[in-house]
C-alpha cells in the first residue's frame, strides 16, 4: 500500500476492483465503512461476482474476469475526453509532458520491438527523447504529439464505452456510472482510493491491470494524498515483509536486483543501478544503491567482505534467467531438480495444475516441509483416492516434515500491508517438539556448515564465512536477527559536513538508511528496515496510540518503512508552492524553510518548492510514470489481451492479429500450452477465490472455520444452472482441460450471465479452500483445474480466468 489501512477512512470514493476486501480483509474493510459513515464516501465494487463487498457497496458493476484493462482503459478515455484530470498535478508530478522517442509505436496490438519467436520485446524505443544536456525533453503545454499525454489520449481513444461494454460485458450505463464517480475525484478537494488484491495480480496481464489504475490515480492527482494512493491488500500476515526481504529468485533484500551473468564487473553492476537524474534537481534516490548493497554484503559476510575483494560480489549468485515458482516446478517436472525446501508453503495446493506439481515432487530426491500444520504437500505421495491419485510405492522422494511454531508460540515482527512493522511476543510453548522457524533454518544451515568445515566441498567459502554471530548458533534470538537487518555501525559514521559530525559510533545501531555507507563501515540486512531497531530500542514494538492529526497516522505505533513514513510520495499532497491541495487532509507542507507536518516528508526536508524536486524520488526523473518506459515486459502502456483460456475466438480489440490474442510477452512452457483448453469443450469462464470464512488452505484445519464453511462448493448463476438442470445443493463436476473437481452447487443471482462481443458468457465461481487434509470435509484442490501460466512480469499464475465445463452428477442407486 502507498497509504495504510486507517487512511482509507479519509477517502471520498473507494473503488474495490481486483479484490474483495470485505471478505479477504474484513478488519481493514472497517475503514471503508467508516469512510461511508463519517465522510459520506461512495463505495464502488467492480467484480465478476456480486460478492460480500458488493453487498454493502453503493454501486456495483459486473465485469468479465480477465477484462479489467479494457474497463480501466475506458475510464482513462472517459477522463481525458471529458477533461477530468488534475492538470497541475499531471503536468508537474507525472511524465505527461515528457517526449517519447519518435520511433516508439503501437500497431495492431503490438508495441514496437516484438519478436514472436522469443515472445519478448526489444524495449529500446520505449524511451524518452533526451536533449543534449542529458535531460528528458518536455513540453509543458502537453500538446506535443510525442508527449506522453497525447500518446495516452490516442492509445485509449479506442476504449469507448461501447467497446468497454463489448469486451467486459459490463452494461454501458453501469460502466458510465463508475467512470463518472472515479472522474469526480479529479478536483483537489476529492480523493479516491483503490483497494485491490489477487483479483488483479492473478492474470497473465496482472501487473498491467495494476498499472492501469496507477495511471488513473496519477491523472486524478490521487497519489501521495491522504485518502488516496494505490493500495495492494497483501495476503499473508508477513507477505509484505517477506517481499521486502526479497525471498524471490532475482532480487536481494530491499528490492536490489541480483546481478545477471553478464554483470561480471562489480563497479559496473553498482553504476547500472545508480541512475543519474533525468531532470535537473531530481533526487534519484537509487543513487544510494552502493550504500545499500555494500551494507547488505557486510551483514552477510562481515570482515570477510571488504573493498579489496569487491565486498564479495562474487559470493552472491548471478542469474541467467529468473527461477520463479512456476519455473521451479517446470524444472522439477522435467527432472532437473533434486531437492526442495517448502517453508510454510503448501505448493501442491497453491500452485496451478496439481497434477504437474505432484509429478514434479515425485521426481525429487528429497523434500523438506516446514510447517505448523500437516499439509497436502507433505503428503503429496499419499493415495487419497480421487482427491490425490498417487501411488506411494512408486514415489522415491524422501520427505522430511518439520513442525514449526505458530504465531502465538514465537516472538518477532510482521510487516503489514501498510508497511508497518509490528512486534509480537510468545504466549505459550508449542505443542510437542515444534520449534520456531528461525531455529529450524539455523539447525539445517549450521549443521550443513559444520559439514563443510569438516569435509570441505564445492565452494565452501560463502557458507563457512556467513556471519553467524548469535548467542546460540542453533537458536538465534529474534532480537539479534532484528538488530542485524536493521543495521549497525562497524566504524564511526560521520556526515559530510565540515567538521564532520559523528552520526553513529562504532557498534551502535543505526537510526536510518541515510547513515548507510559504501565503504564497509556499516552493516545492514535490509536498507528499507534500517532504523527499525535503533539505539532508541525496538521501534517495531512501540504501542503509542496517539494520533495527533486525527487522520489515523499513529506515528508512534510500530515502525513504518521507509523512515517511519506513513504515506508514500507525500510531497504530492501539496501544490507547486508547497500548500496542501486539501488543508483538512494534509500530510506535509512547506513552512517557508522546510517540509513539516503530520508525516515524515518523502523528499529532502529543505528542498524548497521552487527547486522543483519531484515527489517520486526513486525515479531518475522524479515524476510518476504514466508511460512506463522499459519497466514492463509487454509494453509501456497497458493494453487489453485475453486470458490464455478465453471464451472468445479473438481479442475484440485486435480481431485480425492472432499474436495479440493474449499477452504477447507471457512465458508459457510447451507442456502447459498443450494443456490449455478451448471454448468449444470448456465454454464457461471460471475464477477461483477465497471466502471470508476461510484462510487459504490453513483453516480447513481449524474447527471453528470448518463449521462455518464445512464442505466444498462452486457457485453458478441461475441462467447457467437452469440450462444445465442444476439446483441448489446438487453435486456437480467441474472440468478443465487439466483435471476435475466435484462439489456442491450453490445457485445464485449474484453471478450474472454477461453479453460479451455478441455471445453469452457464464462465470463459474470456485472457492479454493478444500483439500485432502483437514478437519473440514475432504475436498478437491481447486488448482487441479487451473492453467500453469503466469503474468509476464511477476509470473503470478492466472487463477482468475480460465475455462471449464460443468455437469450435474446424477446420483447412482446404491448397490
Amino acid at each position: 500500500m502507498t497509504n495504510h489501512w486507517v487512511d482509507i477512512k479519509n477517502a471520498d470514493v473507494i473503488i474495490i476492483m481486483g479484490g474483495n476486501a470485505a471478505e479477504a480483509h474484513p478488519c481493514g474493510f472497517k475503514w471503508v465503512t467508516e469512510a461511508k459513515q463519517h465522510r459520506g464516501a461512495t463505495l464502488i465494487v467492480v467484480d465478476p461476482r456480486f460478492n460480500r463487498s458488493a453487498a454493502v457497496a453503493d454501486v456495483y458493476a459486473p465485469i468479465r474476469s480477465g477484462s479489467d484493462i479494457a474497463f480501466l482503459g475506458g475510464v482513462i478515455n472517459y477522463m481525458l475526453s471529458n477533461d477530468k484530470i488534475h492538470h497541475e498535478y499531471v503536468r508537474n508530478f507525472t511524465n505527461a509532458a515528457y517526449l517519447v522517442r519518435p520511433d516508439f509505436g503501437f500497431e495492431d496490438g503490438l508495441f514496437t520491438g516484438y519478436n514472436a519467436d522469443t515472445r519478448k520485446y526489444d524495449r529500446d524505443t520505449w524511451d524518452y527523447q533526451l536533449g543534449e544536456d542529458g535531460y528528458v525533453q518536455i513540453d509543458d503545454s502537453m500538446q506535443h504529439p510525442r508527449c506522453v499525454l497525447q500518446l495516452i489520449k490516442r492509445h485509449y481513444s479506442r476504449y469507448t464505452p461501447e467497446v468497454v461494454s463489448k469486451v467486459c460485458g459490463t452494461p454501458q450505463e453501469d460502466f458510465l456510472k463508475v467512470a463518472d464517480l472515479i472522474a469526480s475525484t479529479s478536483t483537489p478537494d476529492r480523493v479516491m482510493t483503490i483497494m485491490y488484491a489477487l483479483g488483479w495480480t492473478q492474470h497473465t496481464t496482472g501487473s498491467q491491470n495494476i498499472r492501469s489504475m496507477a495511471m488513473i490515480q496519477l491523472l486524478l492527482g490521487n497519489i501521495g494524498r491522504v485518502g488516496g494512493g494505490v493500495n495492494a491488500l497483501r495476503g499473508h500476515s508477513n507477505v509484505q515483509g517477506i517481499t521486502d526481504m526479497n525471498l524471490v529468485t532475482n532480487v536481494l533484500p530491499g528490492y536490489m536486483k541480483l546481478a545477471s551473468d553478464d554483470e561480471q564487473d562489480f563497479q559496473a553492476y553498482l553504476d547500472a543501478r545508480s541512475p543519474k537524474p533525468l531532470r535537473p534537481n531530481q533526487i534519484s534516490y537509487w543513487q544510494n544503491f552502493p550504500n545499500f548493497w555494500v551494507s547488505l554484503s557486510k551483514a552477510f559476510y562481515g570482515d570477510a567482505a571488504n573493498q579489496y575483494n569487491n565486498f564479495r560480489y562474487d559470493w552472491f549468485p548471478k542469474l541467467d534467467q529468473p527461477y520463479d515458482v512456476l519455473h521451479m516446478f517446470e524444472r522439477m517436472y522435467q527432472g532437473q531438480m533434486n531437492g526442495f525446501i517448502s517453508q510454510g508453503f503448501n505448493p501442491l495446493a497453491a500452485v496451478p495444475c496439481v497434477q504437474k506439481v505432484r509429478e514434479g515432487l515425485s521426481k525429487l530426491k528429497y523434500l523438506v516441509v516446514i510447517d505448523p500444520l500437516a499439509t497436502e504437500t507433505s503428503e503429496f505421495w499419499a493415495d487419497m483416492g480421487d482427491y490425490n491419485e498417487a501411488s506411494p510405492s512408486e514415489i522415491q522422494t524422501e520427505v522430511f516434515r518439520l513442525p514449526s511454531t505458530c504465531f502465538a508460540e514465537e516472538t518477532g515482527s510482521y510487516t503489514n500491508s501498510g508497511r508497518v512493522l509490528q512486534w509480537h511476543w510468545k504466549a505459550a510453548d508449542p505443542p510437542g517438539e515444534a520449534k520456531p522457524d528461525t531455529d529450524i533454518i539455523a539447525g539445517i544451515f549450521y549443521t550443513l556448515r559444520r559439514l563443510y568445515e569438516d569435509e570441505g566441498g564445492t565452494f565452501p567459502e560463502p557458507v563457512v564465512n556467513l556471519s553467524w554471530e548469535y548467542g546460540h548458533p542453533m537458536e538465534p534470538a529474534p532480537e539479534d536477527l532484528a538488530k542485524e537487518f536493521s543495521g549497525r555501525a562497524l566504524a564511526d559514521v560521520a556526515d559530510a559536513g565540515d567538521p564532520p559530525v559523528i552520526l553513529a559510533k562504532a557498534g551502535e545501531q543505526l537510526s536510518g538508511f541515510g547513515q548507510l555507507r559504501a565503504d564497509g563501515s556499516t552493516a545492514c540486512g535490509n536498507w528499507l528496515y534500517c532504523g527499525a531497531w535503533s539505539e532508541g530500542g525496538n521501534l517495531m514494538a512501540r504501542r503509542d496510540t496517539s494520533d495527533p492529526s486525527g487522520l489515523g497516522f499513529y506515528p508512534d505505533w510500530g515502525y513504518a518503512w521507509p523512515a517511519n513514513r506513513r504515506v508514500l510520495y507525500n510531497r504530492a499532497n501539496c501544490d507547486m508552492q508547497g500548500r496542501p491541495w486539501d488543508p483538512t487532509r494534509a500530510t506535509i507542507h512547506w513552512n517557508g524553510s522546510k517540509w513539516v507536518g503530520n508525516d515524515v516528508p518523502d523528499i529532502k526536508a529543505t528542498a524548497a518548492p521552487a527547486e522543483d524536486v519531484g515527489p517520486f524520488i526513486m525515479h531518475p526523473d522524479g515524476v510518476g510514470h504514466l508511460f512506463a518506459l522499459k519497466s514492463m515486459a509487454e509494453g509501456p502502456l497497458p493494453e487489453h489481451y485475453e486470458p490464455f483460456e478465453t471464451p472468445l475466438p479473438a481479442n475484440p480489440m485486435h480481431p485480425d492479429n492472432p499474436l495479440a490474442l493474449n499477452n504477447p510477452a507471457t512465458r508459457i512452457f510447451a507442456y502447459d500450452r498443450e494443456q490449455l483448453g478451448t471454448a468449444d469443450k470448456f465454454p464457461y469462464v471460471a475464477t477461483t477465490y477465497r471466502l471470508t470464512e476461510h484462510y487459504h488452505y490453513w483453516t480447513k484445519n481449524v474447527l471453528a472455520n470448518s463449521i462455518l464453511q464445512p464442505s466444498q462448493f462452486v457457485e453458478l448463476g441461475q441462467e447457467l444452472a437452469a440450462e444445465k438442470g442444476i439446483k441448489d445443493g446438487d453435486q456437480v463436476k467441474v472440468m478443465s482441460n487439466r483435471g476435475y473437481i466435484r462439489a456442491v452447487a450453490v445457485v445464485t443471482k449474484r453471478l450474472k450471465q454477461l453479453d460479451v462481443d455478441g455471445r453469452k458468457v457464464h462465470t463459474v465461481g470456485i472457492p479454493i479452500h478444500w483439500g485432502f487434509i483437514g478437519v473440514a470435509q475432504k475436498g478437491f484442490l481447486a488448482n487441479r483445474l487451473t492453467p500453469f501460466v503466469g503474468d509476464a512480469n511477476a509470473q503470478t499464475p492466472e487463477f482468475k480466468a480460465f475455462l471449464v465445463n460443468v455437469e450435474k452428477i446424477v446420483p447412482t442407486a446404491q448397490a
Partner: protein
Amino acid sequence: MELSRRHFFKVCAAGAGSTSLAMLGFSPAEALAEVRTFKLAHTTETRSTCPYCSVSCGLIVYSLGDRAKNARSEIIHIEGDPDHPVNRGTLCPKGAGLLDFVHSENRLRHPEYRAAGSSEWQRISWDEAFTRIARHMKDDRDANFIRRNESGQTVNRWLTTGMLASSAASNETGWLTVKMARSLGIVSLDTQARI
C-alpha cells in the same frame, strides 16, 4: 385466536404444573439465576499479531496460569486488541477462531520422515532430521553447484535445490532464510507472495 379444547387443557396443565412446582417448594431463592463466571479473570495476557492476512490485527492471547514455574501456559482464549489502531479490538471469522488453529488436531508435534516408496511417517529426532537434510543438501550442492557458466563467467549458483519461503514467517525468519539461501547460491527461490 381460537383455542381448541385440547390446547386449552395443555396450556392449563403446563400452567398448573409450573405453578405447582413453585408451591411445592421450588422457591424463588433457590431458583436464583447466576451468570456464568467470567473466564478470563486471572489469565496471563500476551500481545500478538494475527498470522492470517496482512491487515495484521492486534491480538490479546489469554493463557492459563501466571507464568509461575510450575504452571504450564495453555492458551484458552484469543481476542482482538482494542488498542490496536487498525482493528481496534475487532477480528474477522479467521482471527476470531485462532484458538482452534493453535489447538488444531493437525498441528505437527515431532519431526517425521517418509522413506522412499513408503506410505507412512516415522518419528525422528531433530538431530537426525538436521543431519540427514544437511547431508542431502551438501551432496546435491557439491555435485551440481555451477561456478562458471558455459561462457566462463563466474555465476556461483545452485539450481538443483529450490526453496519456497513462507509469507507467514517473521521478518527475522525471512532474514535468516535469505542469508542461508543466498550464501548457498540458491536461485530457485520464491515466496508465497504471488499465490
